[in-house]
């Protein structure tokens, strides 16, 4: 019971500050927290990235394996995106099979990567209908302070661009030998998340904001600025105008994020 009353008090507090033009952490309404992206942080992964977004920290690993293609795409590699919300990263994350939030995170990040066509999956065919490369993207938040969507998508594309192909011998992968060849990546999709608290629209909600938000909108953009993915969240609503406006102004924020990707 106390939990719910505290939630109300918190929401009042956050909203009152916003009415005065202030965010809980002092940022502008349209401002990202400090972003940094480091790649090649993991020697066991073919590609990896460590993203810091304020106090949110996410490790993304890309592993390659070989396997059967899907029957309807016999000459194409396979992309699999997986998230784990390990309880190390937050007292609210629980052990056990992936819950709704974990699945949504993995699917929304996957959407931007997949729909932008950034991975040239058609180049990942080893033997048509028989053997193709499977690209595993593992999203691994380490410290959770809000907005995993943007942090994980940024980490995913940064890790993909940093992915080296392992050696292939007789249809088996020799993980200990890395080739010079990189995973073919032709686009750099990122996702930008706004939230709505009361009547205010805010970029990049931190945890304190995420816990009290009414609605959330995540939009994925490719390099050309085209929209490749969207996901609305939260039990509240947006007006039509708010959505159109978010989608428009998110485009330049996407460009901002993209500049943090090394290489």
């Amino acid at each position, binding site marked *: 019971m106390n939990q*719910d009353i505290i939630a109300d008090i918190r929401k009042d507090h956050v909203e009152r500050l916003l009415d005065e033009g202030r965010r809980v952490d002092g940022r502008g309404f349209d401002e990202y927290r400090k972003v940094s992206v480091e790649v090649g942080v993991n020697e066991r992964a073919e590609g990896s990235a460590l993203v810091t977004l304020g106090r949110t920290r996410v490790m993304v690993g890309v592993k390659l394996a070989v396997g059967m293609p899907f029957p309807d795409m016999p000459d194409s590699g396979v992309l699999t995106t997986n998230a784990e919300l390990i309880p190390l990263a937050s007292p609210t994350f629980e052990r056990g099979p992936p819950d709704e939030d974990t699945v949504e995170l993995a*699917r929304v990040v996957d959407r931007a990567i997949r*729909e932008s066509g950034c991975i040239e999956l058609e180049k990942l065919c080893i033997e048509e209908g028989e053997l193709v490369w499977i690209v595993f993207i593992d999203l691994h938040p380490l410290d959770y302070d809000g907005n995993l969507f943007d942090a994980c998508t940024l980490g995913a594309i940064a890790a993909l661009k940093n992915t080296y192909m392992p050696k292939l011998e007789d249809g088996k992968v020799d993980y200990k030998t890395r080739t010079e060849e990189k995973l073919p990546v032709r686009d750099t999709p990122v996702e930008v998340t706004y939230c709505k608290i009361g009547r205010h629209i805010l970029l990049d909600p931190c945890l304190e904001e995420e816990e009290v938000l009414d609605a959330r909108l995540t939009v994925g953009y490719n390099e050309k600025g*085209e*929209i490749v993915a969207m996901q*609305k969240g939260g*039990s509240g609503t*947006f*007006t039509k105008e708010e959505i*159109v406006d978010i989608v428009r102004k998110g485009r330049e924020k996407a460009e901002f994020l993209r500049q943090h990707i090394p290489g």
Partner: protein
Amino acid sequence: MKAGEPEEFIVDGRRLDGRRMDELRPLKIEAGVLKRADGSAYVEWGGNKVLAACYGPKEIHPRHEANPKRAVLRTYYSMAPFSVYERKRPGPDRRSMEISKVTRQALESVVFTHLYPMTAIDVFIEILQAQAGTRCAGITAASVALADAGIPMRDLVPACAAGKVGGHIVLDLFDVEDNYGEADLPVAIVPRTGEICLMQMDGNLTQEEFEQAFELAIKGCMQVYEKQKEALRKAYEKRSEE
């Protein structure tokens, strides 16, 4: 080009199933179709056949999930094994889990959950036959089932998708368009206020295309809304007669 992909999506200004760009597939909604459920609805929408049932407000188990300030709304989207061409293994998959979540959030925006603290309201959506657009059909059915159960809501929630196929912005994609088209944009609204309570998109759209598709989807929702109200009216009349 994927196996089965059509060469053209629009022939002589008509879509492959004969529809115009802004035309819905045939839509039939019936309320109060199940005996055991507190409220229910059946939706046939093109090749989609969807049942929704509502149970509640009712005691909540396990107890610690109860909320002292409002009813807990729980939604479960599920596909029958025989609802798709390749038999689906029973049990929730990742796609179903995501749809259950966005459906719940869409409905939470209209249900007066604060009227029933410490209780649960369960909504079950069962896809019996699928032909693209099942999440919109499910939400559409679910809000009718809630109303049929007498759950107080500030409005119904109609849902409809728009998308892009062969370079054209079209309403309410059917399976061929969904599988091989360029973008799909499902939307659910609160008709009285015009608020957007569900919005997802995958594919590729420019800002202009997005705005055009978004407008079209909202118009589609308004058509769905009329069918929803009609279904509830008929169910009410039928019940009065009994």
